[in-house]
């Protein structure tokens, strides 16, 4: 009987401790972390609004990884050094296996793909949670902005598709270009990143939605 209560106590403790630990860790980062702005780019494949959250994709997706041994298909956890660029937005300066000795850094996941000598990675914050009835409104207001541009496909005189390397490169640049006026602020502390807010044209997303809903205002 006593053993039963001991087990119950341990179960209750563990069940409560895990979410509390998640909150405490996140709150600490939000309170003490340095702020960085990450630019959002068009979401690919095009399906940014999935139920309760909006998928995010960022222009910061590759960086040099000097001396890091990378295997192509294994998901590796690496540390990306975060700095603020001249444009005021965050840059991942380099990737390393261990945390950099100084400066802020975030944990990223790399698949080992290389692109022009840099290694591709995924940032840990890839979604912004919205209330279910807000998501359709956000989609209505932002879908065109977040849509990747159509590729410029040339046709020759016989009407055959002629996808020139130059046109493909232009399309790639457009796909990876930042979405004007849309970015997230993220707090970074000891390798942890906490997504603070999604900004649209200088306003938090919820304020932007309520202001652009029309005369009936926010419901």
């Amino acid at each position: 009987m006593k053993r039963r209560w001991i087990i119950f106590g341990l179960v209750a403790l563990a069940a409560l401790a895990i979410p509390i630990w998640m909150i405490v860790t996140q709150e600490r980062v939000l309170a003490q972390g340095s702020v960085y702005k990450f630019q959002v780019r068009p979401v690919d494949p095009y399906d940014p609004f999935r139920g309760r959250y909006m998928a995010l994709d960022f222009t910061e997706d590759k960086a040099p990884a000097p001396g890091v041994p990378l295997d192509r298909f294994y998901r590796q956890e690496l540390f990306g050094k975060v700095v603020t660029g001249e444009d005021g937005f965050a840059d991942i300066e380099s990737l390393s296996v261990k945390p950099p000795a100084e400066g802020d850094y975030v944990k990223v996941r790399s698949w080992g793909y290389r692109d022009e000598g840099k290694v591709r990675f995924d940032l840990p914050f890839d979604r912004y949670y919205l209330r279910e009835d807000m998501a359709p409104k956000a989609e209505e207001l932002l879908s065109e902005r977040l849509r990747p541009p159509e590729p410029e496909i040339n046709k020759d005189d016989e009407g055959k598709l002629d996808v020139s390397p130059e046109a493909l490169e232009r399309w790639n640049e457009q796909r990876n270009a930042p979405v004007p006026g849309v970015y997230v602020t993220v707090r970074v502390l000891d390798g942890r990143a906490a997504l603070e807010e999604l900004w649209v044209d200088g306003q938090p997303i919820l304020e932007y939605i309520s202001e652009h809903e029309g005369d009936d205002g926010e419901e």
Partner: protein
Amino acid sequence: MKVDPVRWLDGELPRWVDRGLVSSEQASGIRGLYGEAPPLNRRLMVVISALGALLIGAGIILLLAYNWNQFSRPLRTAMAFAPLLASLGLTAWVLAKRFSSAPWREAAATLTTLSIGACIALVSQIYQIPGNLANFLLTWTLLSLPLVYLLDASLAAVLYMAGATGWCIEARAVWSHGIFYWPLMALVVPHIYGVYRREWGGQRPAFLGWGASLALSVGVGVSIERNMPGLWIPIYASLYALTFLVAGFIEADQGAFWRQPLGKCGLIGGVVLSLLLTMEWPWEEIGWHYYRHEPPYFGMASMVDYLLLIVMFVSVIVLLVRTLYPRAQGEWVKGLLGLMPLAALVGYSFTAASELVWPPVLFFNLFVIGLGVAVLGEGARKGRLATVNGGLAIISAWAVFKFFDGDLSMLLRGLVFIALGAAFLGVNLVWLRRKERQS
């Protein structure tokens, strides 16, 4: 529907008095020991009350959800923890006051399991905490495991198996390995074993049997590494043969369909697998010549594939010998299913070495028909129409598969279908007439 005991006593006492078993005074004395019988519609009232409470609860949740963004973060956090705290409180009360009641224990364990997942998910959303689904499922599953043993709760055990399988699916989807699936599933085995021992033939073993069979049907395929293409064929053949043979030792031979989870899953799984193996694509490009060295296939994790095959295969052989020796007469179904892993392994090895696909395809076409005939014959022998129809259904399923096979002539397919339809009708008619004559 069960009769209330007091109401039953009210009905029986006059009979006892009539037969002189008790005097009228004694009957009055006995009746006076118990209160009034509850009103007949009490159970209905309980159901309606529960429904009402459920609707009110759902309405409150919807109101909260509507105003979610208006609430401050601390308030939202408190609401995220509320179901978990309430279910933990319920669990404590059940432990103290209602431990002997199985429905209360199952309800407390299930509610607490669901609340744990809901709390973690809500906190992640409130605080915009990124995470991956695999870690979430693993954490949730492991946190809920102690409830299975604390409350002796089988519904929580089935939820646990579903969670472990879900974790494996997600882990493999992000190109990690799934070898921890087996230790995870092993953690719930003591509970399953205990329930089978204590309540053999009861509802709980059947419920757990279905949960385990379905979880393993998915989990085996998802967890294996597949460095060696095609090894899933003898692995799955061994799984279903083993399931079917084990059922012969721990399940009753007859009874309701749902009370024989291992037997039914083993047979149906074996039939479905055999039907798949009558096609060419499972046998193409298999074997050591096509071994996958490159990532994302983990070489070390593939040891599990070989270990699974060896353990299950050897177990099938042992159980088959025990089943058929000394009395093998009439045990065609067990014999055929028990030999399926061997046939699959031989077919696999042959095709891997020779790259010839047609021999195992031909074999499994004959195998499926043979299995259908064996099931039909067993039904006829034991006087079970459902089993006879099951055998016909297996043969018909084979015919339907072949219907879509463009290589066979339309005339042949048409004739086969007519023959099968006539067999179905004929067998059932003869059976019913025989039953009528006997009665």
